[in-house]
């Protein structure tokens, strides 16, 4: 396993825990509580920020540790990692499309959506982007190991 794959596994673990924690908060309190309950709103913002910080801290710590052990990225890694933004962008676009379709269908009669949803769309887009930075890395390495580069 390359250093970049190890880092991607750590990132994926953080992303999954973060996603589950955010989903649990909204399931327990209800999505509309973000509008009505100030405490819930600050908890959600704090959890969101904590997830971003945990991910960035993981990148710094693993980068620092791996650099001490030797080369952490070479020309092959760079070629493989060039595919990752495709997975990230695809996942984010699918997420935004799902939000648009679902909100349009559910709130079509009302002609407007509750103010909480733009925040949730933002949270989900960032979370999906970060999770797929890791998942995309693992997929790209897996694909390379299966098919090679010629």
């Amino acid at each position, binding site marked *: *396993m*390359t*250093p970049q794959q190890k880092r991607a596994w750590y990132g994926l673990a953080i992303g999954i825990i973060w996603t589950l924690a955010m989903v649990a908060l909204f399931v327990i309190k209800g999505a509309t509580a973000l509008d009505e309950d100030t405490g819930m709103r600050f908890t959600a913002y704090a959890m969101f920020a904590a997830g971003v910080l945990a991910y960035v801290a993981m990148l710094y710590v693993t980068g620092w540790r791996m650099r001490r052990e*030797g*080369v*952490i*990225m*070479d*020309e*092959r*890694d760079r070629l493989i990692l060039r595919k990752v933004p495709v997975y990230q962008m695809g996942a984010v676009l699918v997420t935004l499309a799902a939000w648009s379709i679902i909100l349009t269908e559910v709130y079509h009669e009302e002609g407007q959506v509750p103010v909480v949803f733009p925040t949730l769309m933002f949270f989900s887009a960032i979370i999906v982007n970060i999770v797929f930075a890791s998942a995309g890395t693992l997929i790209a390495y897996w694909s*390379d*190991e299966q098919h*090679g*580069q*010629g």
Partner: protein
Amino acid sequence: MGKGEVANRIRRLRFDHGEMTQQDLAIKVGCTRQTIIALEQSKYVPSVTLAFQIAKAFGVTVEDVFQYEEK
């Protein structure tokens, strides 16, 4: 010109150089061990720079390490 393949003798050369490990070669040429594994399995074709660095590590020419084989 038909599609070709770049073969290499890295594994053979490692053994001829005192059973040099993949990690030792990776450190010498500045890449990861996984790239050496991919090269030996012909799953990766290196850049010209890396090809020269590998040849230099073994003290041979690039042609002694890499061969172009037409399919």
